[in-house]
C-alpha cells in the first residue's frame, strides 16, 4: 500500500510573511530602549499641556507668546507644528527607520532572519510595518491627550475636532514617509544615522529657506502642504522660510508623498534583497 506523498510546504507569500515578521518585530521594537526614549520625548508635551491646563484652571493669565496671550487651539497648533512635525516625526523616522535592518546586522541576527523561507523583502516590509505600528501607537495617543487638555482653554472641542483628525492623519503620513526614506538610507549606507540627521537638520532646513525648486527635494516641503494651522514665526529660520514659502497644493502633497513612500520602500526592499551582508567578526 503506497502512502500518498505529502505536498511540499510552500513558502508563505509576501504579505503573510511580512505579517509574521511584523508580529515578531513589534514586541522587540516596542520594548526596546529606543521606544522608552521616544515615550519620554512625546510624553513631554503631555506633561507641559497638563501643567498649562492646571495653571489655567487655577486662574492664571494663560499662555503668552511674545507677550501675547494665545488660546488653546493656537497652543495646540504650535505644539503640532513646532514639536511634532518639525522635530519628533523626523527624529523618530531617523532613529527607527535607519535601524530597521541595521539593528539586525549589528546584533548579528540577520542571518537567522534570512535563513527563514521568506523573501528578504518581506523582512523589510514586516519591520517597516512594526515601525509604523510602534510609532503610531505612541505618538497619536500623545497628540490626543494634548488636544483634550489644551483645546478647552479658550476653544471648543467640537470646533477643533476636524483639525485634530487632520493633524493625526498628517502625523501618520509624516511617520510613514520619513520611515520609508530612512529605511532606504539604512539599507543603503554605512552610517545611516549620521546621514539621516544631516538630512533632517541640515538639508531640509537649508532647502526650505532657499528660493527655487530645491525645496521639492525634501519631505518637509510636502508635509507643510498638509498642515491646517498657519505656521508661526517661531524662529529666524521659520521667518526666512516663511518669506520663501510656496506651499504646494494638497493634492500635489499627497500624491508626491505617496510616491516618495512607494519608491523609497521599493528601492530599500531591492537593496535588502540583493545585498550581501557580511557580518563583522
Amino acid at each position: 500500500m503506497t502512502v500518498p506523498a505529502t505536498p511540499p510546504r510552500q513558502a508563505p507569500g509576501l504579505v503573510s510573511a511580512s505579517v509574521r515578521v511584523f508580529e515578531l518585530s513589534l514586541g522587540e521594537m516596542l520594548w526596546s530602549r529606543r521606544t522608552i526614549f521616544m515615550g519620554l520625548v512625546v510624553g513631554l508635551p503631555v506633561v507641559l499641556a497638563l501643567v498649562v491646563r492646571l495653571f489655567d484652571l487655577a486662574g492664571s493669565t494663560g499662555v503668552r507668546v511674545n507677550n501675547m496671550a494665545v488660546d488653546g487651539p493656537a497652543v495646540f497648533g504650535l505644539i503640532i507644528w513646532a514639536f511634532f512635525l518639525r522635530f519628533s516625526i523626523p527624529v523618530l523616522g531617523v532613529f527607527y527607520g535607519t535601524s530597521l535592518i541595521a539593528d539586525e546586522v549589528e546584533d548579528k541576527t540577520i542571518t537567522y532572519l534570512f535563513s527563514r523561507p521568506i523573501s528578504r523583502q518581506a523582512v523589510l516590509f514586516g519591520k517597516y510595518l512594526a515601525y509604523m505600528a510602534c510609532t503610531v501607537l505612541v505618538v497619536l495617543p500623545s497628540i490626543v491627550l494634548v488636544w483634550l487638555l489644551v483645546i478647552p482653554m479658550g476653544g471648543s472641542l467640537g470646533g477643533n475636532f476636524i483639525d485634530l483628525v487632520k493633524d493625526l492623519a498628517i502625523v501618520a503620513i509624516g511617520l510613514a514617509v520619513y520611515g520609508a526614506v530612512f529605511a532606504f538610507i539604512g539599507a543603503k549606507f554605512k552610517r545611516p544615522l549620521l546621514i539621516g540627521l544631516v538630512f533632517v537638520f541640515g538639508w531640509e532646513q537649508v532647502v526650505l529657506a532657499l528660493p527655487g525648486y530645491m525645496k521639492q527635494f525634501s519631505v518637509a516641503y510636502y508635509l507643510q502642504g498638509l498642515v491646517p494651522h498657519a505656521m508661526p514665526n517661531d524662529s529666524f529660520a521659520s521667518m526666512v522660510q516663511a518669506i520663501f514659502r510656496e506651499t504646494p497644493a494638497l493634492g500635489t502633497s499627497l500624491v508626491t508623498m505617496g510616491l516618495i513612500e512607494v519608491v523609497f520602500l521599493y528601492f530599500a526592499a531591492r537593496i535588502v534583497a540583493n545585498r550581501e551582508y557580511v557580518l563583522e567578526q
Partner: protein
Amino acid sequence: MNKRTRYFVVGSVAIVTVGLCTGLVAFYNGGLTLMSSAQGPSELAYLPANATAVAYANVRDVMNSEFRQKLNQAIPTGEGRDEFLKETGIDIERDIDTVVASMSAAEKEAVVLVRGRFNEGQIESLLRQGTGDVEQYQGIRVVTGAPKVHAMLDGTNGQMPRDVANPGDQSMSVAFLETGLLAIGQTSAVKRAIDSKVSGQNVTTNGELMKYVNDIRSGQSAWAVGRLEAMKQQADIPEQVLQHMPAVQWVALTTHINGGVTGSIRADTLDDAAAENLRDVIRGGLAMGRLVSGQDQKFKLLLDSLQMSGTGKTVALTFSVSPEMIDVLAGLAQLSDMQPKPATTPKVQ
C-alpha cells in the same frame, strides 16, 4: 504578540478612540456640556432664531478687571455712567452682570437683555414719566415708553424740530423677563424676544449661528457673531458698492479682559481665494500702518501686538494689550502732553 504588547496596543487604541469619540460628540452637539456651559448663556433662549447678529458681554468681569482700573486712571470717565443712572436708575458699575444683544437685519430691530440687580419699581416709574404705558404680554410685564415722535413733539408746541429728518414711530420698551433680567428695545423686538422664549424657536435652534457662538464664547469677556452676508443683503447698499465689498460671510469678535486685553476678529469668507485676498489686504494694511507710524511709539506698540492667522476660508486677526503696555501707553501719552508745544509767532503784516 505577547500579553504585554497586546495590552499596550489595546491601551493606545483606546486612548485614541476615546479622544476621537469625545471630539465627534462635541462636533455634532456643537460643544460638550461637561466642559463648558450648555449652549451658551440662558439669555439666548430669548433671542429670535432669525437673529443676524448676537453679542455678549460680561460687564461684571470688565468692570472688575485690572485693565479697566488702569484705563480709568489714564482716561477718567463718569459723565456717561451718571447720565445712564439718572435716566434708568441702573448703575453700570454695580448693577449689571451681563449683557446679551441681538440684531435682526430682516426686521431691522434689536433687543438687549441685561442681567443684574435692578429696582424694577424705579425703572418702571422713570419710563412711565410722560405718556408711557404698562401691559402684560404672555404673562410678562412690559413697560412701553412714549413713541419717539411724541416724545420729540412734547414740549415743542407740536412743532417737529428742524434737525430731525425721520423721527419714526417706534416706541421703546422694557420687559421684566425674570428676576434680575430685563429686555430693552423697540416694543416689537421685546415682544419677539418673549415669543422666542415661549415658543422655543430661538437662536439656540439656529445651528449655523450657534456653531460660531460655541466656537468662540468659551472663557471670553465679550464676544459677538454676525452674519455679514445677511446684513449686506438687508441693508440699503447700492448694487455697485455691494459687488466690491469683500466676500465675507461670517464675522466673529472675541475679547478677554483680565489684566490686559486680548481679542480676535475672525472672518469666514466664501472661498479660499477670497480669504487669501483678505489676508493680503490685512498684511498690506499692517505694513502701511508700520510705514506711517514713524516714530509714534504708541501706534507701533499696538501694531506689533496684531497677529494674523487662519487657514482655508478663515482669516483671523488677534491683538493683545498687556497691562504693561497700558502703563507704557499712558506714560507716552503723559509725556507727549508734557512736551512744550512750539510757540506760534503771529504773522506780521
